[in-house]
């Protein structure tokens, strides 16, 4: 169901669309292995692209000349020690950093070829297309149903039946429906931490985004909930592009197709995950992955 809208929007954004519509089909047939390999090819479309991005908190330079291509319907993991700029980079992708006073971006970030930081960009629309899941589960002080319906309602959907359908679909996608279908009216605070995080994912899915940014989504969860979320990421990537920041290298290895390594604001290395964890090019990456620091 996501399929048609996706391809449609890509066409609308004037990409060389003949290539990706093809890959999209191939992907659904071929499954995971193919999807990983396809990144080494130039076959898939580029959904997000950062080009020589610098970022400043007041005078502190948090990102230094970061360039990366994020392909459609893939999972990209960003790893690195604390304070290396990976979360900052993630937040530049849907302009959440705009909320912090005295920050500045240089360089160019494009979504489907159009500049994110352009003059006429509509922030509300951008964040609808690029959703975000945060480090700690942050459900709103409302019922489970209201939490999921919050986004669609914002964007003008008031039809009760359609909302119900959307809530069910999003909760099913986020693998929470079976657990909560009888208690949709209960406060979201009653759920466990892992359930709350899956609710937050459902809440993002309900606005039908194209890209989902995840900022250490499992750092506040127990191993079992973490497993559920990782499983979920694997399922979601057939229809969404996912960028995930994580502290946990094993997690990056498990869930992602591509991995980027950040250090002190620099993007040291980007490669397919299998290559990154077996034959990293840069010695710093190797040291980090082998646990020599960080």
């Amino acid at each position, binding site marked *: 169901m996501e399929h048609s809208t996706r391809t449609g929007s890509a066409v609308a954004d004037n990409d060389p669309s003949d290539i990706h519509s093809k890959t999209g089909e191939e992907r659904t047939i071929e499954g995971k292995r193919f999807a990983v390999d396809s990144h080494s090819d130039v076959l898939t479309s580029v959904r997000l692209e950062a080009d020589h991005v610098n970022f400043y908190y007041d005078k502190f330079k948090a990102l230094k000349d970061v360039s990366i291509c994020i392909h459609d319907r893939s999972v990209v993991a960003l790893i690195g020690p604390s304070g290396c700029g990976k979360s900052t980079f993630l937040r530049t992708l*849907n302009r*959440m950093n705009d*909320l912090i*006073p005295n920050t500045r971006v240089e360089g160019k970030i494009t979504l489907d070829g159009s500049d994110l930081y352009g003059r006429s960009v*509509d922030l*509300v*629309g*951008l*964040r*609808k297309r690029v*959703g*975000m899941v*945060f480090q*700690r589960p*942050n459900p*709103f*002080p*409302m*019922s489970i149903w209201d939490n999921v319906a*919050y*986004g669609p309602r*914002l*964007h*003008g*959907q*008031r039809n009760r039946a359609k909302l119900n359908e959307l809530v069910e679909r999003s909760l099913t996608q986020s693998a929470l429906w079976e657990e909560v279908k009888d*208690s949709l*009216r*209960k*406060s979201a*605070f*009653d759920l466990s931490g892992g359930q709350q995080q899956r609710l*937050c994912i459902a*809440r*993002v899915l309900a*606005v039908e985004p194209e890209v989902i940014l995840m900022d250490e989504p499992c750092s506040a969860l127990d191993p079992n909930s973490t497993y559920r979320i990782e499983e979920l990421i694997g399922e979601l990537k057939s229809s969404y592009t996912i960028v995930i920041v994580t502290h946990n290298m094993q997690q990056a290895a498990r869930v992602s197709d591509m991995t980027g390594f950040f250090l002190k604001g620099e993007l040291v290395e980007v490669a397919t995950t299998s290559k990154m964890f077996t034959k990293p090019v840069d010695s710093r990456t190797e040291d980090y992955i082998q646990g020599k620091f960080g």
Partner: protein
Amino acid sequence: MAQSASDYQAAGPSSPQGQAKASARAARGRIIDAIFRNATLFFALSTVVLIAGIAISLYIASRPNIHHAGAYIVTGREWDPAPADPTSGKMTGDVYGGLAFIYGTLLTSVIALIIAVPLGVGAAIFLAEIAPRKISTPLSFLVELLAAVPSIVYGFWALQHMVPFFGSTVEPWLFKHFGKVPFFASQESAGQDFLVAGCILALMVLPFITAISRDVLRTVPSAQREAAIGMGATRWEAIKGVVLKYGSSGIIGATMLGLGRALGETMAVTIVIGSQPNLPKWGIPGSFSFLRPGYTMSSLLADQYPNPNSPLHLSALTEFALLLFIVTIVVNGLARGLVWLTAARMGGKTTSDASLKFKASVASALNATVIVFIAAVFLYQGRQDVIAHHLSGLFGVAELIGYFLIGLVLFNRFIPGRSFYLTYRRLVSGFSLSLCGACALAACGAMIMLLLSVAHDGGPSLLHSHLFRSPNGIHPEEGGLLHAIVGTIELIIAASAFGIPFGVLGGIFLAEFGNNRLGGWTRFAADLLNGVPSIVVGIFAYTLIIVPTRSNFGWAGAFALGVLMIPTVMRTTEELVRLVPMSLREASLALGATYTKTMWSIILPAARGGIVTGSLLALARIAGETAPLLMVSCNSSVMVHNLKERVASLPVMIYVLRDDPGSQAIPQSWGCAFLLVLLVLIFSVLARFATRDKMKMTA
């Protein structure tokens, strides 16, 4: 902790003699600790004792009228305190029906809240969510300062500036354009009425609501904001749908605290309400008007309590005090409960299916009621206009506003899903955010205007009206108010001598030993005491001290002021003693000091700044307190130094001088008001510095 420290000490020395000495010292330490704990407990319990004492003494004093009139005091329409006197032909008397006063109290409070809550919450949103730090910090300080300006100053300012303005401009305008609506259907006064009283009350509770709501909004985690904005909410949508929802119980709590204050407020209202008991009657639209003089319970007390006609009259008045006390206790209790509930729910408390549905339906019903009510009011006005002038007078101001509102509601239903919906949302967001800014501007503007006009009128008279001279009985024009200035200082000193020790020691108990049920109740009692109207405390002091002794007017006044100081000092001390890091305590105890020793030599010095702050804030509150002093009839026109006698004070002076025909009365009142505001300003600024010092020490 003291236990383990003394054990360690006892085991240390090796000789038997030294061991005996050490264990004796340890035993003594334990005893001192126990004494210390129980002594602070005694001071902390003072709040519970005071609450119970006020309830009991007011009940005893009002018993004669409870037996005489029963429930008539809350249902009766007639108020005639003069006893029957057949010789002069007066056949009825001693009739105490207080419905008109209850109506006045409720009406003025409701008007005040309708104005103050939207303005205050809007201003709080601006301060907490929108304004950059550079703007919000000074404005927040201004708001806190204004919460401490004495009510008598507000009242006097309203009498001098608001009453003429409302009487000549605002009310005729309302009457002209909204005259068909019952609330504005008759204009009987020249500005001394329910509306002006409600407006000045709104101005008084505004800083209060703003300050608390801002604190509530600041506690909303930024993750909530980010989640909403990350999903494509506009800034206003994030504030409205998520931030306000998260803080809703806290804001309702703030509103209730404001309501408690408005219900019990005396001086400002008494001066401007016009003092005529008026009740609405069905069938007479004009009788519902806000533009007619009224009376409130507390202003009745202020007018009649100092010189009652008969013991029965006195007891009827005391019954009003009891009523006020009960109502404010209930309102404040609910408010605290709500704030507490927020904390509990955010911890993850279950809300049942039914309660969620109930809440949702209540919210939508309320919403609909408000919209229907507003629409009905404007449509009614329009219909009456059409009847009166046929179609020619259709488009008056009222009708235009009404159609605009109805159109807006319909438009809001129709618009979702349209192509320009996004533009509409952005417009709404921008408009609402600037509306919040306008609220902040209006609130702060009104307050700055008040301060400036007090300075403008009070400053010169401070220099020219012989304020600092002794009073002159023969030539009042040449006399000054030195007796009132000296009296205020004496009263403040006597009140602090009573209020500060109780507050500080009780606060230490709450901070150090108060994490149990006893501490919870004591804290709750302190919060309730904080909300008890000062006039009720004044009447309590009168029944407790003046009725049995027939003298000690000054002491009674000082006692009432001291009681008002206790909760503020106690809670501030508690908060700041809690801020002293645990590690300091542990370091001292680990060296073998007793708990008491640790308290005196380590914690109290570290918390000194905080305790000074609490005391200064309390002083700022009582320096301008008028109602309790009025209740114990503490006033005089000569210099008195003995607190057994009636002592003059600045705030009471303003109240007395306001209808003094002498040419010096008004300038001298302004001088008093200016002095009081200066005093409050100095106390508040000092308090700020004391806390800042303290923060450095812990940081």
